[in-house]
């Protein structure tokens, strides 16, 4: 058994430093390649023509704690899901250029992260897309991405001066799909979110 003591020579130090730099670069490269929901949303939130809402994990915990009277299933569902939400982000815009870009980026994001297209609803001139990242267990999801956009050919005919809007919503956490409807109702979220329940029946 020969014990070889390696002296901390200059060559070793150089090798260690090279390794460090190499791993550092690797880390940077990995970060750059990964698109996350935060950067997707932050990019658009800053724009002047965009309306943005961000609700943090703690706010959801607060909502769950403040639900004092639990007298129906919906209230209970709301508490169950609110406790497991990591965050909610919503972007809304009626600027056509930004809306188109947002749509492209959202689809690209869903594709890159290998989200599953859960449901597409085309109704009253608007389309609603649901993409999910599956979580552990049945009917559990890690991220839900919802895109609401109006069909461009309908846009030419402005109905009663109503403003057409494109909405992108992301909900992250450990979510029970069946309870997302309760969240939409209690928090005044876009009503289209409740449509996710339809996906179960399909």
């Amino acid at each position, binding site marked *: 058994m020969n014990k070889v003591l390696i002296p901390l020579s200059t060559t070793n130090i150089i090798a260690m430093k090279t390794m460090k730099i190499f791993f550092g670069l690797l880390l940077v490269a990995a970060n750059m390649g990964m698109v996350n929901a935060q950067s997707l949303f932050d990019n658009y939130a800053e724009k002047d*023509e965009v309306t*943005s809402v961000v609700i943090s994990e703690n706010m959801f915990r607060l909502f769950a*704690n403040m639900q*004092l009277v639990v007298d129906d299933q919906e209230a209970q569902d709301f508490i169950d899901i609110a406790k497991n939400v990591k965050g909610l982000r919503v972007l809304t815009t009626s600027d056509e250029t930004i809306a188109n870009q947002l749509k492209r980026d959202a689809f690209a994001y869903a594709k890159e992260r290998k989200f599953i297209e859960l449901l597409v609803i085309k109704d009253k001139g608007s389309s609603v897309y649901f993409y999910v990242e599956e979580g552990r267990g049945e009917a559990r999801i890690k991220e839900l991405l919802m895109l609401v956009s109006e069909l461009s050919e309908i846009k030419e005919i402005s109905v009663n001066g109503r403003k057409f809007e494109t909405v992108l919503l992301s909900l992250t956490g450990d979510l029970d799909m069946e309870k997302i409807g309760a969240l939409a109702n209690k928090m005044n979220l876009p009503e289209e979110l409740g449509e996710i329940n339809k996906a179960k029946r399909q």
Partner: protein
Amino acid sequence: MSFLSILGSGLLVLLVSSCEPKMTLQRYFLSAQENPEFSLIEVPVSLLGPVSENLNAEQQQTLASVKKVSVLLYRNPEKVDFIANQQVIINEFLASDGFEPLFFAKMKREAQATVMIRGDVNQIDEAVFFGYADDQGFILARILGNQMNPAAFMQLAESLEETNLEALTEGVLKQVLGETEL
């Protein structure tokens, strides 16, 4: 020569910027107090003394967890540039002052609403609300306390009978209005 001068000016900038105290929520409130265009409403919780006599121990404890409520208001539709400028300053120090965002909403460039806290969500030590409208002004509200529990406040509000609540608001309003009239 030119390298040295760049280095020199760089050092100078560093020195000057580090000498200037960093803006914080506290400093902002203090400096705004000196500006007559701002209105400041401060409600020390001791004002609620007469109401708290009717509360049980738990409710009194809840009430006692709040130390001070301060509301800073700026409203002047003519000073749009100033308002926009303040929005940048306020957002900057809120982001760097150790607050955790609970809620952030902005409507295009027209309006903003932000809620931030310091402490755990069930034991809040400080809460800030910032509301902004680009053509009107802004409001900055700060609640200072010690491990405030929002759920306990909900319970307190529910248990307070209407008459109690009326007396409370009336008492506070009288004090606040009385103070501002003086």
